[in-house]
């Protein structure tokens, strides 16, 4: 027996529990791919329908109809209106919500008119029963001429029956000739012309969809678009009117079918969701509850995640030491320890934050709470070109931009999502704290203000955070003006009833996010860290060896201790390395900001991650062994005098200039790697790096000259 591969589309409205059913059907046999040409994730899973039939299941984005209003929805139209598309399904499993059948059947009726064999899976029947709704499944099946099955995505009930009806469809037992909407005679004129013109065989409804959407269908070339445009003008094709008439006509057919197949024993009083919403969306309590929840999210990725992060840090350091002890002293040992293992540590270190953030976010999404947050904050965020959901990213960005940028994925509108991704790294993340700490300690006196309530250093810290927030919002406004929208932004959405989160879905979301980060962003982070390691460890010719010999001689002359000698050698070696050379080469560029070659070197190394700045400065000032204690570095900076000019190398103006530089600068390769992964092109991380660097440069220049 030859085995057969078929393509099944999983389709339905948003919030219908589609992903639970997808998870039930495919388990862990899932991967995330791309829909062609767009930044919408395509989740594909595989399962065996029978021993010899393997199905590829494509989880399409939640959609209300084939008249798209977002890039997510456009994916569905593009695949379903083009029989030659690689994603055009052989069969459709349509998931509908038992508590709101009428609306959910709208898209189903459109799919049926495409003449793709379809089976209807009715989800959340248990919830419907609680609401007093009972459904006569057989009657519904008969009227719609579509096999309907009750399923439960959470428990898995009905999944095997669903499987059976897919087999029936494959055996040709489904009806795929009847339709629900009959085109009017005016529409029919245009349909016939398009069908005659189309290079592939279209159903009537596909031809009608071409007439409505030809301008946005990526598979049509310009001459085809012009031709269809000509037809629609000739026939006076009334886009909006026909769309509304068609939709209303569908409801006219569907409403009686639904009314005849369900009985509602109306339960009096407010539902649980209504009671919860009375408090949770209250004008005063709503925002307070939301902000408190976000503070909890912030706290968890800022401080709770630090426990596993420290463990990873120590674990990697121990492993590093162990490898160094076991392997011979050679360049390849250094490559493995300081290059590869450090790079790997730099990737894994983010896993706790990503896992915790996505655990909390999927709780908010799954329970239905996120929709309420959007309802409350959409208007404010719209002023800055973002969506209500963007707040989650912005607050998370205070801990780390990497999970925050990944969290922007749930923003449906492309423009709002892009703006959120582009501005989030301006929020001061935890990696900036060590940099701010040394600079503030150096430049700001520890004097009490406001009668001892605060001290001046605390105020300076707060100022830096505020500067970041203001920059974030202003950048949002600027991007809002620059970026072209691919779909209109508007707020008209369902507020789903509250549900217990489905733990399996939560678990799968967290796993998927962590996996994607490690595999896709991890590659870039590893590569950049190996390159940076090589640049910092090697110099042209034997310059590194020479630097060591000279440093040793000088140490003897100066009478330094062993530890001091080692620090001194490290400083001289770094100076002689390629990074040192780069630092000296870019010094003229940064001189107007008050930075000498030593700071310039630290700017180069801290491209890996901002906190590296402190370590590099310590190495260059020959106190690399001081570890995390900032007092010796502060002392060194205060005492550092340029021997040729006799002036202080590091002034208060330099410190403030650096602070502003680090508020704005995109000094984090890991964030850039994630932005590349999330936007699926190098264009956006490049734009982000450029605009933030320019902002940092000129912000720092301005600051240096006012002090």
């Amino acid at each position: 027996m030859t085995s057969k591969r078929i393509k099944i589309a999983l389709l339905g409205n948003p919030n219908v529990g589609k992903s639970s059913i997808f998870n039930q059907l495919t388990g862990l046999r899932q991967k995330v791919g791309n829909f062609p040409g767009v930044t919408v994730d395509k989740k594909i899973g595989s399962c065996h329908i029978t021993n010899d039939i393997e199905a590829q299941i494509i989880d399409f984005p939640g959609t209300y109809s084939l008249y798209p209003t977002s890039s997510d929805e456009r994916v569905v139209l593009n695949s379903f209106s083009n029989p030659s598309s690689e994603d055009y399904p052989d069969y459709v499993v349509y998931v509908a919500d038992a508590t709101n059948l009428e609306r959910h059947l709208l898209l189903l009726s459109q799919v049926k008119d495409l003449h793709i064999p379809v089976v209807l899976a009715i989800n959340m029947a248990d919830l419907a029963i609680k609401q007093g709704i009972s459904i006569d499944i057989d009657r519904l099946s008969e009227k719609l001429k579509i096999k309907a099955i009750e399923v439960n995505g959470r428990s898995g009930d009905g999944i095997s029956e669903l499987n059976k009806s897919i087999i029936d469809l494959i055996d040709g037992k489904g009806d795929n000739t009847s339709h629900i909407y009959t085109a009017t005679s005016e529409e029919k004129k245009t349909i016939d012309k398009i069908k005659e013109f189309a290079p592939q065989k279209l159903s009537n409804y596909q031809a009608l969809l071409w007439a409505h959407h030809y301008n946005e269908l990526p598979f049509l070339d310009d001459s085809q678009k012009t031709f269809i445009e000509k037809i629609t003008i000739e026939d006076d094709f009334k886009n909006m009117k026909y769309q509304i008439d068609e939709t209303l006509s569908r409801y006219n057919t569907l409403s009686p079918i639904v009314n005849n197949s369900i009985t509602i024993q109306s339960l009096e009083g407010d539902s649980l969701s209504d009671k919860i919403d009375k408090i949770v969306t209250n004008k005063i309590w709503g925002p307070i509850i939301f902000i408190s929840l976000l503070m909890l999210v912030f706290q968890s990725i800022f401080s709770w995640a630090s426990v596993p992060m420290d463990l990873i840090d120590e674990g990697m350091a121990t492993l590093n030491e162990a490898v160094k002890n076991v392997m011979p002293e050679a360049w390849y040992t250094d490559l493995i320890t300081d290059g590869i293992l450090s790079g790997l540590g730099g990737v894994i270190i983010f896993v706790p934050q990503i896992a915790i953030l996505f655990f909390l976010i999927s709780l908010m999404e799954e329970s239905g709470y996120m929709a309420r947050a959007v309802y409350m904050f959409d208007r404010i965020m719209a002023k800055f070109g973002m969506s209500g959901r963007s707040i989650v990213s912005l607050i998370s960005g205070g801990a780390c931009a990497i999970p925050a940028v990944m969290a922007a994925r749930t923003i449906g509108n492309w423009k709002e999502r892009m703006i959120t991704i582009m501005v989030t790294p301006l929020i001061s993340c935890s990696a900036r704290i060590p940099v701010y700490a040394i600079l503030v300690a150096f430049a700001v006196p520890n004097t009490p203000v406001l009668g001892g309530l605060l001290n001046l250093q605390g105020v300076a810290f707060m100022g830096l955070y505020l500067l970041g927030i203001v920059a974030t919002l202003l950048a949002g406004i600027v991007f809002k003006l620059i970026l072209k929208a691919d779909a209109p932004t508007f707020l008209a959405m369902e507020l789903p009833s509250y549900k217990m989160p489905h733990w399996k879905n939560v678990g799968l979301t967290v796993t998927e996010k962590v996996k994607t980060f490690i595999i896709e962003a991890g590659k870039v982070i590893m590569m950049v860290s190996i390159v940076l390691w090589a640049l910092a460890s090697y110099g042209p010719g034997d310059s590194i060896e020479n630097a060591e010999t000279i440093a040793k001689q000088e140490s003897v002359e100066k009478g330094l201790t062993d530890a001091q000698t080692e620090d001194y050698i490290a400083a001289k070696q770094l100076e002689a390395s390629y990074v040192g050379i780069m630092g000296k080469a870019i010094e003229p560029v940064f001189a107007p900001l008050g930075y000498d070659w030593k700071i310039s070197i630290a700017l180069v190394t801290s491209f890996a991650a901002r906190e590296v700045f402190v370590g590099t400065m310590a190495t260059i000032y020959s106190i690399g062994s001081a570890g995390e204690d900032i007092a010796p570095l502060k002392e060194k900076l205060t005492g550092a005098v340029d021997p040729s000019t006799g002036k202080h190398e590091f002034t208060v103006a330099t410190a403030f200039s650096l602070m502003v530089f680090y508020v704005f600068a995109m000094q984090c390769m890991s964030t850039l790697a994630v932005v590349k992964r999330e936007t699926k092109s190098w264009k956006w991380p490049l734009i982000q790096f450029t605009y933030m660097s320019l902002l940092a440069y000129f912000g720092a220049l301005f600051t240096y000259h006012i002090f």
Partner: protein
Amino acid sequence: MISLDTLPIGVVGIISEYSDKVVGSRLIELGLYPGKRIKVIRKAPFNGGLYVKSDKNAFAIGLTEAKSVFTTTD
């Protein structure tokens, strides 16, 4: 006929027409088509959108968007 944003809280209105194509078609997709009964339950903080109910379902509609939806009252 009054626009949805001016429908008093708690009063049942019947959707009659839309003046914005995108908002109108999305509302129809959501099941809020002409003839449906709709009630404003509350308004969002900071002059935000409306929390409305129709049948047993709850929806959020932005303030600007609500200005393009017209209803009649009994």
